[in-house]
């Protein structure tokens, strides 16, 4: 896992922000996959407290949008922030989300809540896929129509498991192009 201070000029990077009680290994796997599949060096910021500010009593869930706003307000570190939470996330229109992101924005968040499997390796792989998908949105990439691309929209855990951990050629090209444009 990359740490702050080890960055070189022109290096693509993103800050991973563990929020509340989160499996540290899941954070490491997400970071490693961002590095391998997207060429983004991931720094892990210190643990943030549980996001009580985002709790919605009426739904017994946490508002993804509020967590994203909080992440966006962090001034230090990279221009991109990816939050990882254990709690269940929702948006005003969706009953739940595996993750949420600002298209072409600064911050995204993923939740491990619905990704749990009795096999931890599977849980981590799911987290990595969601982390890569939401980070793709941060780079301005929308949903892909190619079904076996990580940028395709998946609405169920079964579909997520069926999705290979790779981007299609077009999305991969777009990721490289955008990173080059942003980080030089």
């Amino acid at each position: 896992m990359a740490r702050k201070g080890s960055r070189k000029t022109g290096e693509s990077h993103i800050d991973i922000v563990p929020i509340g009680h989160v499996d540290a290994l899941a954070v490491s796997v997400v970071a490693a996959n961002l590095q391998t599949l997207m060429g983004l060096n991931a720094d892990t910021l210190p643990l943030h407290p549980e996001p009580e500010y985002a709790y919605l009593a009426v739904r017994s869930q946490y508002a993804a949008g509020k967590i994203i706003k909080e992440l966006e307000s962090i001034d230090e570190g990279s221009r991109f922030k990816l939050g990882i939470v254990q709690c269940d996330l929702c948006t005003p229109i969706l009953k739940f989300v595996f993750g949420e992101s600002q298209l072409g924005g600064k911050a995204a968040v993923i939740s491990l809540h619905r990704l749990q499997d009795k096999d931890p390796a599977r849980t981590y792989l799911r987290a990595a896929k969601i982390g890569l998908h939401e980070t793709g949105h941060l780079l301005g990439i929308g949903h892909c129509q190619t079904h076996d691309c990580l940028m395709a929209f998946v609405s169920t855990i079964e579909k997520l498991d069926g999705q290979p951990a790779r981007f299609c050629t077009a999305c991969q090209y777009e990721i490289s192009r955008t990173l080059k444009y942003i980080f030089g």
Partner: protein
Amino acid sequence: MKFSTRILIVDDEEMICESLQAWFVRDGYQVETALSGEAALKIVENSPADIYLVDIKMPHMDGIEFLTRLKECQPNAIVVMMTAHGTVQTAVEAMKRGAMDYFCKPFDPDELSLFMERILANKALREENNTLKELLSESNQQGLSEVFIVHSEPMRAIFSKIEEVAPSSAPILITGETGVGKDMVAKAIHFRSERSCGPFLAVNCGSLSESILESELFGHEKGAFTGAVKARRGRLEMAHNGTLFLDEVGEISQKMQVSLLRAIEEKSFLRLGGSQPISSDFRLISATHRDLPSLIKEKQFRDDFYYRINVITIDVPPLRERLDDIPVLADHFLKRYAEETGKSLGGFTHKAIDLLSSYHWPGNIRELRNVVERAVVIARGRMIGAEELTFVNPRHDAGLIGSATLRELEINQIKAALESCNWNIVRSSKRLGIDRSTLMRKMKRYRLDRC
């Protein structure tokens, strides 16, 4: 389909609007939002959307009232009602007033995804239905639904080429004289292509002024020019997933050629007065009766545009070069007009067919159709004879000799001699200055017979 679909979200809760907008934008749709029914109606006035997601419960104008008002100006709008309160009664009322469906907020992600797929499938079906209706109506009006007759050798060769090139998306240029049926060739290509379920949109570039043509092709936003009282989609936009047929492309101004070239290459363009690029995936088929290479030499046509539209060329020969088609086409038109006029006609006499075959048809198939139509109208007997076709009789057609071929002149001259000699071969041959056997041979070759 997604990328050209415009969604308008109408909800008084800003968070709902933002959240839905973010989801649909990520999924590739073009999205606008309105926080009230009134604001939504203003947007509709300027640029109607394809799909409306409307909250039922809103202050002032509620969703049901908005739906009613929207349906007055856009009866075919696809409207989906949303409710946070599970008020099924109201939702049923909305369905009665023309809403396509309703669903409760918040949505299950899988439901939302499947729901949008269903709406898009429904939209595609409606558009296909409308296109087919238009085409059917056009075919009925023009009576061209089955005129693509493949009989002569040149037309067989063209038909083979159509079968060969139809599956690709390469631009095609159809050349040929006026009235040879270039539009029928374009339609035949479209209906044999993978885009056959999409629209076939034809624009006659020669019949419109430059400004009208520009608006017709690219569409315009409300207020783009005097008289643009509401936004309108252009043919380029409407031809998405289908074929755009530019007839008389040689008449397009150079300025328009530049705009079209950009739209063809980038597959996106702006409406007049618009700022949002519109994507459209269409196949371009152009047609002209003019000699475009000569126009390029005279600097009246852009060579870059010519090379772009002329990836494949199909040259449709004039009717006089495919004489074998004349009896078949004439018979086809005869049947159609006989049916329309309720006349019982058996066909053409040999003499009439000879007359039709000897004419040089400067107006090609269109002229033949008109000639047969007129003949059917004035016909008295069961067969159409030469007397009903006097207007194509070469003897009354001296002005056309200048453009007649040697063969046509010979046929006419022989016929005239035969008729003036009451079909006496010896006297006719003397009059023509040839011997009897030569005349007999020529009569056989040109199938000249007294009927």
